[in-house]
């Protein structure tokens, strides 16, 4: 994608982190991290294990409260958003260790992603008629659209606990998409997948960004994926930001090479 084409596609700043520091007891997980994410962008966060990448996502969607720093989302600046608020503001995420609801089927899991859009009252729920019934069917249709998009029709009634790891990751992505988010946080979406599955997942992520215009922040270890997918990259090491720029810029950055990428022997 040419530089001008991607510049046209990208919008204003959607999310900005300034001076984020986070500590657990004596351990400093994040140390004065600042960067921004633009509308429609695909931003990758990379770095060695323990660098604080997942903690960064947790700060963005309100699970952790940073000890210092400000998160500005859609123009509103605050230190922490409650997770529920993050959801209402249009932030969705997937997790490194799959956080699906193991007792429910694939369909039900994805339907939970639509919870915030369902408003039928309690009484209607009890009798399952009128507004409740209409909503169920409406949202079922939307969810089927996503199921179709991610090609998981054949497993829609299967209890999630029985699925293979790669499929579970896809279901988790579906659940996140069901919320029709503006900002999608993906925590190692391709961990544990083989080459084919990774290609599929890459394609899905690109399609989501293209078709729905969703802004995506993803943590990933596979450098090939990162270089291909992302518009810009943030590099973390021991909780500090050591690189920030386009994939090419980052690849040439000496500090990043020393900490993470290594050299060809």
């Amino acid at each position, binding site marked *: 994608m040419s530089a001008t084409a991607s510049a046209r596609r990208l919008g204003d700043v959607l999310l900005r982190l300034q001076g984020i520091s986070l500590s657990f007891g004596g351990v400093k997980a994040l140390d004065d991290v600042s960067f921004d994410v633009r509308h429609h962008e695909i931003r990758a966060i990379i770095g060695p294990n323990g660098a604080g990448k997942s903690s960064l996502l947790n700060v963005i969607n309100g699970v952790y409260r940073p000890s210092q720093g400000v998160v500005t989302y859609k123009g509103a600046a605050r230190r922490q958003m409650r997770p529920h608020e993050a959801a209402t503001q249009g932030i969705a995420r997937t997790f490194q260790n799959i956080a699906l609801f193991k007792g*429910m089927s694939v369909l039900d899991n994805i339907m939970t992603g639509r919870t915030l859009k369902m408003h039928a009252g309690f009484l209607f729920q009890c009798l399952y008629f009128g507004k409740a019934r209409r909503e169920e069917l409406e949202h079922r249709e939307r969810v089927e659209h996503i199921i179709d998009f991610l090609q998981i029709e054949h497993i829609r009634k299967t209890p999630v606990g029985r699925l293979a790891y790669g499929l579970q990751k896809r279901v988790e992505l579906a659940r996140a998409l069901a919320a029709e988010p503006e900002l999608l946080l993906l925590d190692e979406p391709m961990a544990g997948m083989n080459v084919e599955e990774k290609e599929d997942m890459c394609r899905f992520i690109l399609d989501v960004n293209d078709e729905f215009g969703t802004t995506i922040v993803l943590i990933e270890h596979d450098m090939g994926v990162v270089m291909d997918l992302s518009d810009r990259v943030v590099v973390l090491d021991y909780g500090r930001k050591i690189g920030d720029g386009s994939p090419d810029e980052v690849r040439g950055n000496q500090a990043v090479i020393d900490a993470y990428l290594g050299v060809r022997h």
Partner: protein
Amino acid sequence: MFYREAGQFKTSYGADQAVFPIHQDRIFVALWLAIAFVLVPLVSSEYLLRAILIPLLILALAALGLNLLVGYCGQLSLGTGGFMAVGAYAAYNLCVRVPALNPFVAFLLAGGVATLVGIAFGMPSLRIKGYYLAVATLAAQFFLDWVFSRVAWFTNNTPSGSITAPPITLFQLSFDTPVRKYLLCLTILALFAMVAKNLVRGRIGRAWMATRDMDVAAEIIGIRPMYAKLSAFAVSSFFIGVAGGLWAFVHLGSWEPLAFDVNRSFSILFMVIIGGLGSILGSILGAAFITVLPLLLNQLPQWLGVSMSTAMISHLEAMIFGCLIVFFLIKEPLGLARLWRIGKEKLRLWPFPY
């Protein structure tokens, strides 16, 4: 070969989401309802109705309520007896102090009182889980035990502490014969089961199950833990409160606080576990199992031709009971409901083995 789905394809999401999507299932259920509502009252003896079926139906309602809380929402509660007591005493006080009140309304209000108490004692669930929550609910159980035995107002200042419920008359019909009582309980159970099923397959049920499975992730999706947990406590307590009222008025007639003690809580919890956590049918099967079992065990020595003292029989009962619980937990942790489902699966393939 009878129980096949071949040829039954769904052309709309609505049809796919029906409670009984398979045609044969609908016939099956209709048949069961016909038997329950028409055949059983005609052929059952008074003993059967009074000693087995009526308690079974009422306890099934309580088990259903508890299953919504423990099985669907994952909040362990050992206070069921206490909440039944709330329903019973609330219904009693309403009927005795406001005699003009329609008993139907009185029961609903009693359920409402139980709901409020349930929400109050469910508050700790917002901060604690698992065993800790169990202890909090035990606190509720013992506290409620004490309240109903010490505070004379609840028993209308009856010196003995044992109170008698006034008879229920609805639309000039007095519910005093076993058949009428049976039909009343059956209707209430059927209605509540339908409501439960509707709740469970919709937004609220999914919120409960999400909270049960992984509450942190649920919160991140936008499901507020407070609403999910407290709504589970509320609905569950309503069911249990109404069951308590029925237990006192329809089954016992006269009672004292001991009728709703911690043993009652455990017994209903066992029904839920053995029947199957997270299953509506399971609650009913579990209640049936636990109601019928002691009666069978009582008859066993006679059938075997061995004579035993009643004390010995009750010891044996306790042992067999305990062994069965362990057995179910090992062999079929998903309870009788799962066994039922496996049975249906086999029926689908019949006469082929697999």
